[in-house]
């Protein structure tokens, strides 16, 4: 999609500012997940607390971006590519905010686990691996949003299946641990929640990739079986 300039320079500035703040929000959310996972593996309780407290910044960005989008709609009545862009941004911002919530959830669980006295061996390594995959999906989907790259977005959509598979594999391992040693149950349950949060992050990243395809091609690929 070619992005020539609007006759109104202010329109370009407003739209450009909204787009770059979506990317900034994406960057903040990505660092929230990363820090939450670091806290889980290192047991750094200060870090868990920082992540939990920083979530309000993500929420504030959501509110601010929604406000700016509705203002742009009222003032400019965007059409065609601009309309699809604003529509997709409003949906993207919702997904980013939910990813922020998931990161906060991971930090809470990490705090619980380590306050109780550490993980007795459940598969934190696999969790870290799944988290890396989810973070990579998120980063690539934001890149695709910035460059309006459909092929990259289609790749992100396909990658979501991998995280779903990893989630099921983590679940199977945790069940084995719990059956062998019931003392691991509390921690294992918390790790289930963490794994589920990571799996949800993958879903949100996939949604955002679908919006990129909508912006560029105008086709809605949500809830379709075949990735474009």
């Amino acid at each position, binding site marked *: 999609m070619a992005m020539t*300039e609007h*006759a109104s320079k202010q329109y370009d500035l407003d739209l450009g500012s909204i787009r770059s703040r979506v990317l900034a929000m994406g960057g903040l959310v990505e660092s929230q997940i990363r820090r939450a996972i670091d806290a889980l593996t290192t047991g750094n309780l200060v870090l868990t607390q920082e992540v939990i407290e920083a979530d309000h910044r993500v929420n504030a960005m959501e509110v601010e971006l929604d406000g700016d989008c509705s203002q742009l709609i009222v003032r400019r009545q965007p059409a*065609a*590519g601009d309309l699809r862009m604003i529509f997709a941004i409003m949906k993207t911002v919702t997904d980013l905010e939910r990813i922020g919530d998931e990161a906060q959830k991971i930090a809470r669980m990490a705090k619980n686990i380590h306050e109780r006295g550490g993980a007795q061996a459940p598969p934190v390594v696999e969790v870290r691996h799944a988290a890396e995959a989810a973070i990579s999906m998120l980063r690539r989907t934001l890149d695709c949003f910035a460059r309006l790259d459909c092929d990259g977005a289609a790749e992100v959509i396909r990658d979501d299946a991998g995280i779903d598979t990893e989630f099921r594999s983590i679940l199977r391992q945790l069940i084995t641990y719990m059956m062998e040693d019931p003392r691991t149950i509390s921690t294992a349950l918390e790790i289930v929640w963490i794994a589920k949060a990571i799996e949800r992050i993958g879903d949100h990243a996939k949604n955002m990739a679908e919006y990129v395809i909508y912006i560029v091609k105008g086709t809605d690929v949500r809830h379709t079986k075949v990735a474009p």
Partner: protein
Amino acid sequence: MMSALETHVSELLATKAEARKLSFYYGDFRALKNITMPVHERKVTALIGPSGCGKSTFLRCFNRMHDLYPGNRYEGEIILQPDNANLLARDVDPIEVRMRIGMVFQKPNPFPKSVFENVAYGLRVRGESSRRRIEEKVEQALQDAALWEEVKNRLHQPAYNLSGGQQQRLCIARALATDPELLLFDEPTSALDPIATASIEELMHDLKERVTILIVTHNMQQAARVSDFTAYMYLGDLIEFGITDELFIKPKMKQTEDYITGRFG
């Protein structure tokens, strides 16, 4: 060029009129270039485009308005249904065409007569002499133009006493009185306030149950609101014609996209 949905829709819809390879010349200047486009029956079709794109010129071809000036020349055809006849043919009387195809202009232009006589005018020109039939027709046309309740007690007052929005609806009633098959609107609300504009737009929506409407508008939001089909024109060319919802969300041509998103010029 058409999407599967558009092809499907076009096949289902009857065509009221169709421009075929239509070109138009003001002397040596070619204002319309080879335009081929349907006007679907009992639908609203909007013509949009920047000033000078030929949209009003195109609209005026449909009731032979250009015949009034020397040096103007048509090429190609406009086929009117159900007759399947070219209304631009030399042997077709433009007065006959205008009986079937009504027009409403940018500024309300009531005759300097009473409200009643404005609407009755077309009927009298047609040779209707029965007072009872004229009264019935006038009331019906005013009702159809959503004006009857406002003017029924002042039918014999001068039309100029009405507000701008009422005058425009009176002009629509005048056009409706002769039972036109096609109504041409040339920026019908650009001189009206938002409330009067809304009432005209509402009226168009009701009218399309029985009459085909072709409208020129500078207001893209209006085209998006009132029309079923939209044509984007530029410098005398038809750039894109399609279902309005598709054209405003996902236009096929970059030129259309640039125009409707304000990236023009």
